[in-house]
């Protein structure tokens, strides 16, 4: 069934996505040691200056430097997104592997229904509920996003791992006397790594969108920590005199999501021949 591939599938998406994400990651890391101006430094006399009139990208209503705010926001957005996806992927994959090892049964059914339940309460709403009690902040945002990621990865890991459990080499491993835990770690986990990693990149884009949405509603990092979402929310008051205030942070969010989505698409095209056929 193998056919000669003239060019590796998804190559340009991977390259483009990786370049975008790498650039953003460098900017985010750089913001920890250097920004053109301190992000929270207010210069009221320079307020609402358009791009290039003050700093590279202008200033906001307090005269803060937009470029510096965006840089610091990159760190906040990317770190929250990455952390919540890694937590969700870790818990979800472990859970999926565990129930796949148990096979069909009441525990598996309960876990999968539990996934449906978690899935029905999207991050914005769980963040609202959590935010009402423990207040908005990094922790609330991460828990809210991660709790939505867990069922995604549980389902993927369960579906892929169940297929692996039906393979002959698993049967052979069992015949050798290996227990379910060892088989899961040594044989199943490495073989489901690809779909899980592809999903991680796709979910990273979603996590960035969600983090931005939470910050936009005031449920993300509290001020003065700059976030892209809150910059957008604050810009709404100045749409007429300073539209760039609303355009630039949105552009940053879209670019980050685009970067991760392109990587996800590229990886999926490369590793999943069934889907690649249709594209």
């Amino acid at each position, binding site marked *: 069934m193998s056919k000669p591939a003239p060019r590796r599938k998804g190559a340009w998406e991977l390259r483009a996505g990786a370049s975008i994400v790498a650039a953003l990651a460098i900017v985010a890391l750089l913001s920890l040691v250097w920004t053109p101006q301190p992000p929270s430094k207010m210069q009221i006399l320079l307020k609402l200056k358009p791009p290039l009139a003050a700093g590279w990208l202008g200033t906001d209503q307090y005269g803060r430097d937009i470029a510096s705010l965006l840089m610091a926001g990159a760190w906040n957005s990317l770190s929250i997104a990455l952390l919540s996806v890694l937590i969700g992927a870790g818990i979800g994959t472990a859970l999926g592997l565990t129930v796949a090892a148990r096979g069909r049964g009441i525990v598996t059914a309960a876990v999968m229904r539990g996934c449906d339940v978690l899935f029905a309460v999207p991050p914005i709403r769980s963040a609202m509920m959590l935010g*009402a009690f423990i207040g908005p902040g990094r922790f609330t945002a991460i828990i809210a996003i991660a709790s939505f990621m867990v069922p995604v990865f549980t389902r993927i890991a369960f579906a892929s791992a169940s297929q692996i459990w039906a393979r002959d080499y698993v049967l052979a491993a069992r015949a050798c006397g290996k227990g379910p835990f060892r088989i899961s770690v040594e044989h199943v986990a490495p073989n489901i790594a690809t779909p899980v990693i592809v999903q991680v990149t796709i979910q990273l884009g979603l996590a960035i969108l969600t983090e931005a949405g939470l910050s936009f509603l005031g449920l993300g990092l509290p001020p003065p920590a700059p976030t892209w979402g809150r910059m957008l929310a604050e810009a709404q008051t100045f749409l007429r005199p300073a539209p760039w205030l609303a355009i630039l942070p949105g552009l940053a969010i879209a*670019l980050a999501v685009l970067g991760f989505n392109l990587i996800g698409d590229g990886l999926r095209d490369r590793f999943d021949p069934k889907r690649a056929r249709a594209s």
Partner: protein
Amino acid sequence: MTGLLLRRLGGLALTLLAVSALIFAVMNVLPGDAAAIMLGTSASEDTLAALRAELGLDRPLVLRYAAWIASAATGDFGRSYTYGVPVSELIGERLAVTLPLALFAVILSVLIAVPLGVGAASRRGGALDRFATVFAQMSVAMPAFWVAILLIILFSTGWGIFPAGGFPGWQAGGLAALKSLVLPSLALALPQAGVLTRVTRAAVLDVTGEDFVRTARAKGLPRRVALWRHVLPNASVPIVTVLGLQFTFLVAGAVLIENVFNLPGLGRLAYQALTQRDIVVMQAVVMLLSGLVIVVNFLVDLAQMRLDPRLRALA
């Protein structure tokens, strides 16, 4: 089919019950007493005790949950602490905004995505296909609330065609109300349309490659007829599935969009309940929105079985 339907309905009821338990648990078990949260730190001990009694917080958790579920099943979600009216009344008013908004968004996204996806698939690699690919990537990457702001910059503060926000109410006349929903539903629809375009394109390409389509074309069926009679019905299963899955994000996105446009919908109600710490309202709205998502997913399941007899056999 009836037995299957009953089993599915049972599953639906169980899921709804589990979701309600989860929501109730989060709202009631987390540290912080609802009464204290609602009244703030300056409340006196007497007021707190009075509110606790009113909310029934002095009773055991399980009893409270049972009481909440029992009255919720009859449509009674309790009384809003901040508005002073029954929550069901509040929700009814807000649904009159959120439901049309979600509906328009779904219709718009289908109207954009299906023709674009089908067009892209039928001229693969052509200009339309390339446009569809770029459109899909872009619209998925752009946050809906940013799209909303861009639409406001363009159509409201710029050209002044549509209002930048607010809702005159249906009693002010259908046209004015509809006009104020145009930009919000467009903002909500665009990201959905991106996802749907990709799915439509992939599904149509997938089915077009099947043997029965080649046979249909070989026996002389024109391209257009083959598309309508053979390709689209078969491609509709994944399209409907994704439409249903996207509904979760649509409802979630509505919270943000309603806040951008100041629309008095359910999402805005939930947000206001959050800022005013009106736990009773929040619990009810979150339950309602989550229930809506579950019911829609259930209906999608049924629709899939209707569209694809093979799934009926499997289930």
